[in-house]
C-alpha cells in the first residue's frame, strides 16, 4: 500500500511532537479589545455590517449565556477558562471584502500556499488529476476569500461566508439560522451564537447536484484569540452537496479556544455529506498548549428520504468535545456517522454522535474507531434514541478502540433509548490492543515495527477512510501516521 509507505516517510521526517502547521504568520490585524460584553458583540456586529435583527439575535444569546453553566459531564479535564481573557474578534487588515485574489494580502496567500490549500482558481484548474474544490478560507475571525463563486452561481449554488450571506440573503438566514441548533442549545453553542465571527454558508437549491466539492479551511493565527465560526448548509428538495472542512493553528504554549456551530438542513430527498479533517494544534509532548475544541454539529433530516452523513478524522486539539448528530425527522431518512479519533501525548477526546429517530422507517449507522496512544484519553460518547412514533427504525453501531501503550485510556459510553417495539437496534463495541500475532505476521515478512503498526492501524480504520472524499482520504491516512509517531516501542 503506497499510502502506508508515504505515512512512514512522513513520520520519519518529523520529530516526536513536531506539528507541521505550527508556524505563525506576522500579519497586521484588527482586533476588538479583550473580553466579552454587550459592547464587544455590538462591535462584532457593526464590523460585519449586520442588520439590527442579527444584533438582537446575538445579544439575546449573550444574555442567555450569562445564565448558563459550563458543562462538566464530559471526560475531559482542563483549567477553568477565563472567557474575559480572550479576543473575540481578530481580522487581518485590508481584507474588507477583497474583490479578487489580487487584493488579498500576499502574506495571507502565502499562509495558504504553505498549508497546501489551493486558493488560485487557475492553479487549481491547472492540476489535471485533482478534482476541483471550491474553498472558503477563514483566517481568525473572518473569511478571506471564497473561490469558484461564479461558477457555483451558474448552478444556482450559493457558497459564501456567513457574514456576506447575512447581508445578501437575510431571508434564508432568518429562516434557517438557529433552526437546528437553537441559541439556547448548550453553553458553547450559545456563546457561539453571541460572538460568531464568520464561517461558511451553503445553499443548494431544489434538484441541484452541487457540481464540485465545497470546502472551508479554518486557520487560527492570532494569540489569545478564540475562533467562533458558524456554518450553515441547506440542501433543498433533491439536492446534493459534499462539504469538506479542515483546520490548523500555530504552535503556542497557551491554550486557545475554538467553539464552532455547524447546522445542516436536508429537505425531501436531499443529501449532505460533511467531512472533517480536524488537525488543530494538539499541544506538545508534555501536554502544553493546544486548542480546546468545543463544537456543536447537528444535521436535521427534515425531509422525507433525506440523508446526512458525517465523516470525521480527529487527530488534533488538546481537548475535543464534539458530537456531530442527526435528527431523523423525515420519514425514511438516514443518518450516518463515521469517525476516526486518534489521540496521543496528553490529548483528551470526548466525541461521538447522536441519532435521534423521530420519523418512520428511519435508519442510522455509526462506525467509530478510536485509537489512543501516549498519555491520552479517548472517549466515544453516543446516543441512539428511538421515539415512540418512530416505527421500523434501524440502527447499527460499532465502536472499536485500539490502545497503544499502557498509559492511555479508551472509553465507550453509549446511550440507547428505545420506545418503539418495531425498532431494531444493534450496538457493539470492542477494545483491544494490536495483537502480537498480527504484528508478528506483518513483521516476519520483513516490514519494520513502526510500519507494521501503521499498516494494522490503517486496516483498523479502513471502514471510515473509505467514506472520505479521495483527496481527504490520503491526507487522513498521513495524519494518522503522524499522530501516532513516537507511540511505538
Amino acid at each position: 500500500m503506497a499510502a502506508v509507505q508515504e505515512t512512514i516517510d512522513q513520520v520519519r521526517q518529523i520529530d516526536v511532537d513536531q506539528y507541521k502547521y505550527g508556524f505563525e504568520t506576522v500579519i497586521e490585524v484588527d482586533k476588538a479589545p479583550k473580553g466579552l460584553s454587550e459592547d464587544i458583540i455590538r462591535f462584532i456586529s457593526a464590523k460585519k455590517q449586520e442588520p439590527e435583527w442579527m444584533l438582537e439575535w446575538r445579544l439575546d444569546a449573550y444574555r442567555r449565556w450569562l445564565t448558563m453553566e459550563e458543562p462538566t459531564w464530559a471526560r475531559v479535564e482542563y483549567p477553568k477558562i477565563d472567557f474575559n481573557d480572550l479576543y473575540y474578534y481578530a481580522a487581518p487588515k485590508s481584507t474588507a471584502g477583497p474583490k479578487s485574489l489580487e487584493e488579498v494580502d500576499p502574506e495571507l496567500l502565502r499562509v495558504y500556499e504553505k498549508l497546501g490549500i489551493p486558493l488560485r482558481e487557475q492553479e487549481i484548474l491547472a492540476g489535471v488529476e485533482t478534482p476541483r474544490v471550491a474553498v472558503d478560507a477563514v483566517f481568525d475571525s473572518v473569511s478571506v476569500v471564497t473561490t469558484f463563486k461564479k461558477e457555483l452561481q451558474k448552478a444556482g449554488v450559493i457558497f459564501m461566508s456567513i457574514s456576506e450571506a447575512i447581508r445578501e440573503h437575510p431571508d434564508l438566514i432568518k429562516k434557517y439560522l438557529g433552526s437546528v441548533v437553537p441559541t439556547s442549545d448548550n453553553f458553547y453553542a450559545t456563546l457561539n451564537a453571541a460572538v460568531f465571527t464568520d464561517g461558511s454558508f451553503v445553499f443548494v437549491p431544489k434538484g441541484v447536484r452541487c457540481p464540485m466539492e465545497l470546502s472551508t479551511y479554518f486557520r487560527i493565527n492570532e494569540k489569545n484569540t478564540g475562533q467562533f465560526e458558524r456554518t450553515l448548509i441547506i440542501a433543498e428538495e433533491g439536492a446534493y452537496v459534499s462539504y469538506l472542512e479542515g483546520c490548523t493553528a500555530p504552535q503556542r504554549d497557551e491554550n486557545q479556544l475554538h467553539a464552532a456551530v455547524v447546522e445542516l438542513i436536508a429537505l425531501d430527498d436531499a443529501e449532505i455529506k460533511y467531512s472533517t479533517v480536524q488537525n488543530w494544534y494538539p499541544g506538545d509532548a508534555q501536554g502544553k498548549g493546544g486548542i480546546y475544541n468545543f463544537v456543536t454539529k447537528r444535521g436535521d433530516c427534515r425531509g422525507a428520504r433525506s440523508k446526512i452523513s458525517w465523516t470525521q478524522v480527529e487527530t488534533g486539539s488538546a481537548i475535543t468535545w464534539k458530537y456531530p448528530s442527526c435528527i431523523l425527522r423525515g420519514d425514511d431518512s438516514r443518518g450516518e456517522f463515521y469517525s476516526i479519533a486518534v489521540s496521543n501525548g496528553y490529548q483528551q477526546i470526548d466525541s461521538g454522535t447522536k441519532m435521534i429517530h423521530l420519523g418512520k422507517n428511519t435508519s442510522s449507522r455509526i462506525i467509530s474507531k478510536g485509537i489512543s496512544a501516549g498519555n491520552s484519553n479517548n472517549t466515544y460518547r453516543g446516543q441512539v434514541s428511538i421515539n415512540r412514533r418512530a416505527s421500523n427504525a434501524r440502527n447499527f453501531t460499532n465502536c472499536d478502540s485500539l490502545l497503544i501503550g499502557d498509559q492511555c485510556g479508551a472509553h465507550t459510553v453509549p446511550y440507547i433509548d428505545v420506545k418503539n417495539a418495531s425498532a431494531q437496534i444493534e450496538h457493539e463495541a470492542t477494545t483491544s490492543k494490536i495483537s502480537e500475532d498480527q504484528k508478528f505476521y506483518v513483521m516476519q515478512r520483513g516490514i519494520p515495527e513502526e510500519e507494521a503498526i501503521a499498516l494494522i492501524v490503517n486496516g483498523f480504520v479502513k471502514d471510515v477512510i473509505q467514506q472520505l472524499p479521495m483527496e481527504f482520504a490520503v491526507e487522513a491516512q498521513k495524519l494518522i501516521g503522524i499522530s501516532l509517531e513516537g507511540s511505538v516501542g
Partner: protein
Amino acid sequence: MNMQTTSRLTAAETALVEAFGAQIGELPGNGAVIGTRDRLLDELKKAGLPTRRIEAWHYTDLKNLLRSVPDVTLVSAIDAIAPLVEGSKVLSILQGTADAKAAVDGIDIALFKDRLADGSAAAGLTALDKDDAIGRINGSFVRDGYAITVPANTELEAPIELQALHAAGQVHTRFPVSFGAASKATIIERHRSVTEDAALVSSISDITLEDGADITWIILQTQGAADTHLGQIRVQLGTDAKLRLFVINAGGKLVRQELRIDVAGEGAELTLRGVNLLGAESHTDVTLVLGHNVPNTNSTEIIRNVVFDRANGVFQGMIRVAPDAQKTDAKMSCNTLLLTDDGGFSAKPELEIFADDVVCGHGATVADIESSHLFYLMARGVPENKARAMLVNAFVAEIVEELEEEKLVEALEGVISAWLEKHA
C-alpha cells in the same frame, strides 16, 4: 459541580427524614453506628434523592419516581414459606426481622442487629460514593439481617435461602456474607411480598469471596406491583475466586438493583446473568459497576430483558479496567425484547479502559420478536400468541439453564413461566 442544593424536600424525602426522627431512639446501634446513621441521613437530606442530572441515576430519577414512602410497620404476622428449591436451608427475615433461632450446620450465622448493637457493623454502613442513595437510605434505616461466615474449605451441599418476606411499610435489611478460602456454596436471596400493599424495601448484600471460593448467588426479586425495591450487591472477589451471580427481577413497581463488583484477586472469574421481566407500569433499573482491578481476570455478563405493557427498563453496565489490570477479558451483552410501544428500554453499556493488553467488548440489542422465528413456529401450526410466548420463554430460559443444577433451573423456570402467563 454536581452538588445539589435542595432547598425544598419532596414528600418522599420529608417522609424519610421524619421516619428517621421517629425511629432514632429505637434503631439498633451503639454510638458509632448512630453517628454514622446521623451522618448518612444528613447527606441524604442535603443531596436529596438523586435526579436524572446525576449521571449514575440518569434513567432513574428517584426524586421524581419515588412519590411517597409508606410508614414503618414493624409487626406483622407473616409465616415463612416453602423454599424455592426443596431441601434448602431457610434463613427467614420476616418484615425486616431475622430469626434469632436460625442456624445452619458448619457455618457461622449472627444477627445483623447484634452487629449494629456492638458497633462492629459501623464501618460497613458508609455510602460507597457521593451518589450512593441506596447506601445512604439503607445505612440510615437498617434494622436487621444476617451476618454469615462460611469457613474455609467448607462445601455446602444444600442451598441456603435468605427468605425476605414483607407485608407493607418499610423494610431495610443487610447481609454481610463472607466465604472462606476454597469454600463452595449456593445462596438464594429472595425478596417477596405477601400482600399487594405498597412497601419500600432496601437491601444490601455485602459479599466477600476469599481465595478460591466458588459461589453461586441468586437474587430473585418478586415483590408486589406497588412496591419499591432498592437493592445493592457489593462484591469483592479474591484470588482465583469464582462467582456466578444471577439476578432475576419479576416484580415491583420501582426497582433499582445496583451491582458493585470489585474483581480484586488475580485469576478471579465473574459470571453475571440477569433476567428482567417487566410489565404493567413498572420501572426497573439494573446498574452494574464492575472493576477489573488486577491482572488476569475474566468476566462475562449477559442481561436479558422482556418489556410488556407500559413498563420501562434500564440497564447501565460499566466495565472499568484499572491501569495495571493487563490480560483482562471482559464481555458484556444486553439483549432486550421490547414488545410494546407504550414502554421503553434504555441501555448504557460503558467501557472505561486504562490497560492496553485487554480484550473487552460489549453488545446491546433492542428489538421485537424476530418475524422469521415466529413464522417458523406458525408454519408448523402453532398459533401466534402461543408461538410468541414460546419465543419469549426461550429467550430468557436460555440464561437460567446455565445454572445447570436441575432443581434450581426448574424452580426458576417455573417462576418465569408463571410471570409470563400472567403478563403476556
